[in-house]
């Protein structure tokens, strides 16, 4: 019962109420599945000690998934039991998340899976709700296509998506990211040698980083043509200042004692940089890299709205919106989201490897 005390009385009462409603409606209607969930949930709550809950939890997930699958059949739509079931599944998932969040952390690989379970359950529920509501309300495809339709489109047009991905992400975003970040890093090393320059450039750089630099996209398209160099140029302009500011800040992050120690060792500027200041700057540098990674993809996509060859994610999004092919638009967005998350994830992993000593990387 510890779980119940921790998850809060209101939540608990609300869930029981919803489950009762669900059982009542589901029992009289055409949905016996809801009853199954209710029984499982009740059993979970009242009978099982915390240690064995994991098995019932898995059963609960299975039941939810079963309901999810069956509700997509035609007979389960647009009635009161349908909505009750949606509520029940939502609350079931919520409860599951609460359970996972409250249960003691496991060690090793299981612990990692445990911390992934809650967001995964949330995401899956959201996706399922989207699908169910779109189908139940017969939302027109030109307004909001169901996830299954989007997945369908994603599978059928991998070739187009791949071409767009290469054009926008690999050619536009990645090359711009590399140039911009590299240039900012070298410039930061130069700036770092002069205190005057640092004091002048930090406020100006901070100011420029807050500006809507994405607005330079039409200018870059005018200068560098329609193809990917103009997109890379926009990305360079977007990532330069956040990266510069972070690197300069990071290079200043050592304290006087440490620098004095280097001086007593008679370390040259290069040695002090390599052995002390660069390592101390890595958390800042990775912060800049992570900010830049999201900016890069946005810059490359939005720059294509101002003119591009007949391929690329931004081009595809704007033309397919015009043709009301929204499933294609969502497929592009899914690819962009995946690419962006992977890019960010790789940087975060690298950060964990390089700055393992930093307090923010400690296990909680």
């Amino acid at each position, binding site marked *: 019962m510890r779980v119940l005390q921790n998850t809060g009385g209101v939540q608990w009462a609300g869930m029981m109420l919803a489950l009762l409603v669900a059982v009542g409606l589901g029992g009289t209607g055409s949905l016996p599945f809801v009853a199954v969930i209710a029984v499982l949930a009740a059993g979970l709550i009242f009978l099982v000690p915390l240690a064995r809950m994991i098995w019932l939890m898995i059963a609960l997930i299975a039941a939810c998934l079963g309901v999810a699958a069956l509700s997509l059949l035609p007979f389960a739509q647009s009635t009161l039991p349908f909505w009750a079931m949606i509520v029940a599944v939502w609350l079931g998932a919520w409860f599951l998340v609460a359970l996972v969040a409250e249960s003691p952390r496991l060690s090793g690989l299981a612990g990692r899976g445990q911390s992934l379970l*809650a967001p995964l359950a949330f995401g899956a529920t959201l996706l399922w709700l989207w699908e169910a509501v779109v189908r139940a309300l017969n939302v027109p495809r030109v307004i909001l296509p169901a996830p299954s339709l989007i997945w369908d489109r994603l599978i059928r047009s991998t070739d187009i998506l791949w071409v767009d991905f290469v054009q926008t992400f690999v050619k536009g975003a990645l090359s711009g990211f590399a140039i911009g970040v590299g240039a900012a890093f070298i410039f930061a090393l130069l700036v770092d040698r002069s205190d005057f320059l640092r004091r002048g450039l930090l406020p100006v750089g901070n100011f420029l980083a807050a500006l809507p630099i994405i607005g330079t996209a039409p200018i870059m398209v005018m200068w560098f043509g329609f193809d990917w160099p103009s997109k890379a140029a926009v990305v360079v302009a977007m990532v330069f200042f956040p990266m510069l500011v972070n690197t300069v800040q990071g290079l200043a992050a050592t304290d006087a004692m440490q620098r004095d120690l280097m001086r007593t060792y008679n370390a040259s500027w290069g040695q002090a940089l390599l052995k002390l200041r660069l390592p101390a700057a890595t958390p800042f540098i990775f912060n800049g890299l992570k900010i830049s990674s999201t900016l890069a993809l946005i810059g490359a996509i939005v720059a294509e709205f101002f003119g591009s060859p007949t391929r690329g994610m931004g081009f595809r999004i704007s033309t397919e919106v015009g043709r009301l092919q929204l499933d294609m638009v969502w497929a592009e967005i899914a690819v962009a989201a995946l690419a962006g998350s992977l890019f960010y994830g790789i940087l975060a992993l690298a950060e964990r490897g390089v700055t393992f000593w930093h307090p923010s990387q400690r296990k909680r």
Partner: protein
Amino acid sequence: MRNLVPVLAVSAALIAIWYAAVIPMNQQWAQDQARRAGQDLSFIALVTDTMSQQRPRLPAPHQVAAELWNSTVVEELTGRRGIVNTGSLSNRSLVYHGWVTLSATLLGFAIGSVLGISLAIGIVHNRAMDASIMPWAIASQTIPILAIAPMIIVVLNAVGITGLVPKAIISTYLSFFPVVVGMVKGLRAPDHMQLDLMKTYYASGPQVLLKLRLPSSMPYLFTSLKVAIAAALVGAIVAELPTGAVAGLGARLLSGSYYGQTVQIWSALFAAAILAASMVALISILQRVTLKRMGMAA
């Protein structure tokens, strides 16, 4: 104020670099013109020509400044459609377009920050919300939300919602996450000692929130609000692109790029920059005043 001289020096250097870049960027056109006229172009003539072209590849700073002045003050005061002659803002002035963008930005920013603060309060008080929503809030930062902007605009237009609201929705979306992330950090800023003290006072959850967590989150709040309002402005500008260049700074950018009016693009860009800078500055002033009155000034 210690930084004033270096900042001015760096700014002056940037403007000097800009002026220097104008000459090579625009010399192609100037030399073509001279060749067509059969003249030989001296260096002085080249410089003066590159600084004053009608449609330069890179307009000189003074051209942009003049265009900014003409399309705001001059247009409104003396223009045929200006506020003095017609009583309403001219649709050719940057004041009008800036206001269109600013209103969407402010609406989106207001909704976004209120939503963000309430979600942060929920996340701090509920483990389940923390475990399930927080990773998605962070992951959503890596997704190019701006790419969805044209779709949201077109779809909402199809449903019948036009004008301010669709743009504000995109601004909301962009300004929402910085506030959530910053406020979660801020609401968790009180340390164990302080929380324990509240416990010894037998303070209820809302009391802890009001008397300890919210006050100690203020520095984080203002920092994230600054990020959020800059993001909201970017969202409003990008949201104006797909509506076919009707009104707003984004529309000025788009129509400028259609007709090759580089000076117009640059002046719209600077108008956006001035808007962003003044809004961030406004929040900074608010921050300073608030923190001072709360006794938290640095």
